[in-house]
């Protein structure tokens, strides 16, 4: 479905030459939910923007359904971390969700249907007439997700969508995304810096190195479905997987810093300390 091949992105600004992404290759199958996780500042957002056609890669290419991405492709929706800035404050919730559909040229009745359906899916049927800024942070992000759903995308890109909401809301939103993914069969590429979230949500986790970014490891998450905030997070397999990802991330951070490489193995934490924190 989605092929990222040899992706490289170098920012050139006022003589400065910053290599954000060095060489990334991975694929996401149709209907898969893949989490990208990496140390902070590792170019995750850059990568996602290249995939979404918002940034042109310096080298390499992104293929969606075998076709090269050169601009924002149809059938692809984006959910940003900054929901407050991504939703338009001058439009009501319903209008925000509807705007992309108008651009698609759908008839009015169909648009209404899709808007109502999407808002219902995220549990915000009553909020259609409100302005986004009248809602709580978690609700705003749900509106942004509804906007993406109404667009009926094949591929949904999510850029740390829950980084700015509180832990309880976050757990609810994670389950919402899992539920929607199962229901609608959308392909989801979910970027996060939260290891627990990556393991809990993903069918597969791609661990990235520090910037300049490469893929460190790809990991299949063989946790049973449906997942549950209480039981999944205390399973031994969950702890194993999160430990493995955690080690990789720590190693990625170490190797990014100048210093002896031998320190990598010794410094990783024991899994027992990382009991699940979300409830």
């Amino acid at each position, binding site marked *: 479905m989605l092929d990222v091949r040899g992706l490289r992105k170098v920012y050139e600004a006022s003589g400065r030459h910053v290599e954000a992404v060095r060489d990334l290759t991975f694929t996401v199958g149709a209907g898969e939910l893949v989490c990208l996780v990496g140390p902070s500042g590792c170019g995750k957002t850059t990568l996602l923007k290249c995939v979404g056609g918002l940034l042109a890669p310096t080298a390499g290419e992104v293929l969606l359904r075998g076709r090269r991405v050169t601009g924002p492709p149809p059938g692809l929706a984006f959910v*940003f971390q900054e929901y407050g*800035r991504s939703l*338009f404050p001058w*439009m009501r919730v319903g209008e925000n969700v509807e705007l*992309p559909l108008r*651009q698609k040229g759908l008839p009015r009745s169909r648009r209404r249907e899709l808007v109502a359906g999407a808002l219902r899916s995220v549990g915000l049927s009553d909020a259609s007439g409100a302005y986004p800024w009248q809602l709580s942070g978690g609700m705003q992000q749900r509106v942004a997700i509804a906007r993406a759903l109404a667009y009926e995308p094949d591929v949904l890109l999510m850029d740390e969508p829950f980084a700015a909401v509180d832990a309880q809301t976050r757990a609810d939103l994670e389950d919402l995304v899992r539920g929607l993914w199962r229901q609608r069969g959308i392909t989801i590429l979910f970027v996060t810096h939260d290891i627990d979230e990556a393991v809990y949500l993903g069918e597969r986790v791609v661990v990235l190195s520090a910037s300049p970014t490469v893929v460190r490891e790809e990991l299949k998450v063989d946790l049973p479905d449906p997942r549950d905030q209480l039981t999944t997070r205390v399973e031994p397999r969950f702890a194993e997987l999160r430990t493995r990802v955690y080690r990789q991330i720590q190693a990625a951070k170490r190797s990014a810093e100048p210093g002896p490489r031998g320190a990598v193995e010794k410094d990783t934490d024991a899994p027992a300390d990382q009991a699940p924190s979300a409830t």
Partner: protein
Amino acid sequence: MRGSGALLGAAGLAGFLALCEAVPRLGVVDADYFPPAARVGDALLTELGDRSFWTALGDTLTGWALGLSIAVTAGVLAGVVIAVVPHLRELTASTVEFLRPIPSVALIPLAVLLYGTALRSVLLLVVYAAFWQVLVQVLYGVRDVDPVAEETARSYGLGTWARGRYVLWPTALPYVMTGVRLAASVALILAVTAELVIGAPGLGARIAVAQTSQAVPEMYALIVVTGLLGLLVNVGARTVERRALAWHQSVRGEVTV
């Protein structure tokens, strides 16, 4: 709270009027040049009954409204074009900074040379003064577009035109409104100034006539009218602003979660 504020305001105005009445009557200032408020009030009532007063008022408002519309339209168009076309802002910045501070009244001789006492003279001055107010605000407003909002719009396939309409324009609107409000006040000042100095028909010219014919209370009455016009213009502009920007953080009240 609001009611008591209005009450205090009314009391302050009454006190001011009482002072204007008392000061000339007590002989502190010469009543010939500073007539008591009651006489100005009388003159105002007489003016209101005079058809030529209404014609003058109409002339002034025509110059104001026409000039303001031209300035706002031109300011918005020029602002958007300058902001959107690459390098145009850098190219025009120094010229704008040079032209903008030129006082419009300095153009009076030019206006007289070009158009004499016709309406176009007034328009030239009004448009010149009001245009920059709008242009500068539009330039700021267009620059204020949130990159996340812009990327959201792009990722959902909104083209240039749609992004202009649904992202750029609403973002710039609060700035445009401020520009229009400032321009509306400046336009009125320039309309009256032009009439006063050039003698184009309107309230300004009527003030000049009242002055030369020693009709002091009438002159004051006309000045009061121009003041009231300014007040109305400002209140009107603020009302429009509040309606158009109900969503904006400067207008919206407490957030209800």
